[in-house]
């Protein structure tokens, strides 16, 4: 823990949210990302310091739309949500209690709010109180030994002692079909909440089926489906446990390693980042704020990985562009374990040249 704070130095850490935690699992093999996230380094700020364009913002129109839709679903004591749950899960009519966990009077610190959330959720789990819908719970997660609070952008819902996570998203379900990448992203985020809620009430009391509420077709009318996030939970748990073993990764860094974005020069930041091994692949482009930096580095090192998984697999173990082209040239010396791929590459090189000629 102290080591991680030491790396970040005086710069404020970046708050985690479900999205950023879900993204941890996007490239589990990358040490660079693991260390930066564990140390809560502000990655967008880092990129800004290195003069990369920031493409990670969200459009104000999208933010607004999302807010409007969420407000609609929750309006009038979550009347829409109640209807959907009654339709989808046969929620009995008596189960109509709605509690906004944000209403905590004057004590608005994270700790107090989280305590309130825990208390109400536990009571509810024990069958006390009348809460069915628990809005805006402030949940907590252990990330690399640090306690992070998740933005309470979610609803927990309880039926017969079993909790579900409800995720409200403003992308449309059009003719009963939604955009797969968007659903997957929503599932990954919801899994983070399921994980955190299980921490409060126990594993068996939180369902792996989350409820996704989206606008139907081109309307604003909310509609709901269940999404199974078991797979996402496994991936998340694996990545979180990897972060708890962050010490092993830190041991490989030089003594006194620092990534204090406020005190280091941009050259020093660049060098520090370069000291942590990365695992760039084109998928990073849509998952990690550092991708443009890592891509540049990967190309400078002529890494085949940067051309995509297919190319990497096809070239069977050859890691650099130069090596690939060298072994494809007749007469060049070839290592034993590359003899087979070399022969195949020489063949394709020949027929390509023939065909283009």
């Amino acid at each position, binding site marked *: 823990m102290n080591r991680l704070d030491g790396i970040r130095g005086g710069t404020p850490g970046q708050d985690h949210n479900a999205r950023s935690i879900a993204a941890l699992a996007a490239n589990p093999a990358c040490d660079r990302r693991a260390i930066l996230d564990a140390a809560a380094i502000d990655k967008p700020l880092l990129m800004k310091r290195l003069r990369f364009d920031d493409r990670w913002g969200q459009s104000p129109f999208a933010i607004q739309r999302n807010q409007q839709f969420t407000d609609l679903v929750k309006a*009038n004591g979550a009347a829409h949500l109640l209807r959907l749950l009654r339709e989808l899960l046969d929620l009995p009519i008596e189960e*109509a209690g709605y*509690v906004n966990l944000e209403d*905590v009077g004057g004590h608005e610190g994270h700790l107090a709010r989280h305590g309130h959330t825990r208390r109400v959720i536990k009571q509810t789990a024990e069958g006390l109180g*009348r809460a069915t819908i628990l809005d805006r719970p402030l949940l907590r997660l252990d990330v690399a030994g640090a306690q992070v609070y998740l933005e309470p952008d979610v609803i927990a819902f309880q039926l017969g002692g079993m909790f579900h996570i409800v995720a409200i998203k403003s992308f449309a379900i059009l003719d009963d079909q939604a955009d797969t990448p968007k659903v997957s992203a929503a599932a990954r985020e919801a899994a983070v909440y399921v994980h955190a809620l299980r921490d409060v009430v126990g594993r068996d009391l939180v369902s792996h089926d989350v409820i996704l509420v989206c606008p139907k077709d081109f309307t604003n009318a909310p509609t709901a489906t269940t999404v199974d996030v078991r797979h996402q939970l496994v991936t998340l748990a694996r990545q979180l446990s990897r972060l708890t073993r962050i010490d092993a990764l830190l041991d490989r860094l030089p003594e006194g390693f620092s990534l204090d974005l406020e005190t280091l020069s941009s050259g020093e930041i660049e060098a520090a980042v370069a000291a942590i091994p990365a695992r760039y692949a084109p998928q990073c482009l849509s998952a990690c704020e550092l991708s443009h930096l890592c891509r540049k580095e990967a190309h400078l090192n002529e890494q085949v990985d940067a051309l995509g998984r297919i190319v990497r697999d096809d070239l069977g173990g050859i890691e650099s562009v130069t090596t690939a082209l060298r072994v494809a040239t007749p007469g060049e010396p070839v290592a034993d374990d590359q003899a087979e791929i070399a022969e195949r590459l020489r063949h394709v090189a020949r027929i390509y040249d023939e065909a283009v000629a």
Partner: protein
Amino acid sequence: MGKLRTAIRQATAAGRHAEARALRARLREAERQWDTGVEQPSAQPPLVPVREQVHRALTLLGAPTAAKMIVAVDESFFGGQMANTQLTSLRRDEEKSYRSAPGARPYYLCAALTSELLSPARGLLALSTWELPQRIIGPLSPRTDFLTSAIRLAEHLMRLESASTGAFRLLGQLAQNIPGGGDGFGPADPAKVIAAAGAELAVHQERDQMDRREAAARAADRLKPVERLFGTGLKSVRSA
């Protein structure tokens, strides 16, 4: 409107399509306002202060309500025009006024209190003239208040000689979330809404009243008058 139409013709003739298009949309908007104006003579609102507009909407709704709904009711039932933003600082202003001269006004727009912590419930406005239990929000209260308000709006519509289509549409939107209240398409049937909402209300009412009375007693016991209206904890008063 005549002027708009001329402008559209001119723009179209000159090939300024985008402009013509924009004008056309404005014309439709104007026509729509004209239609509602004809339908409901009170569409030109007299200059009622915002707090009075909120008061009459809340009186009709009969339960603590969020700003958005208050605005919607004011618009479709009273032909008023308020922006959500006009309501944001209302509760704080009322509290200030109350503190400087308690009881000087016949009513105050105040907070609803959560049953557990007696803290102001986020985003809800209530009337000081209501009994304390009416201003308590227990777990079931958002639902019972919603059903109560739907019934009261429906009853009001049945009493009216003529009402705007907007009012029926609003009721229809509420009714779709009440089992047996309507499907959300087309204008609502007030009698049906009253029956459906009444049926569900009967399920919750007793338990809800219990919670409310218990919390109200606690509030009467522990809170100062100003806190009974605006909740405990100064900090949290900021979000009206």
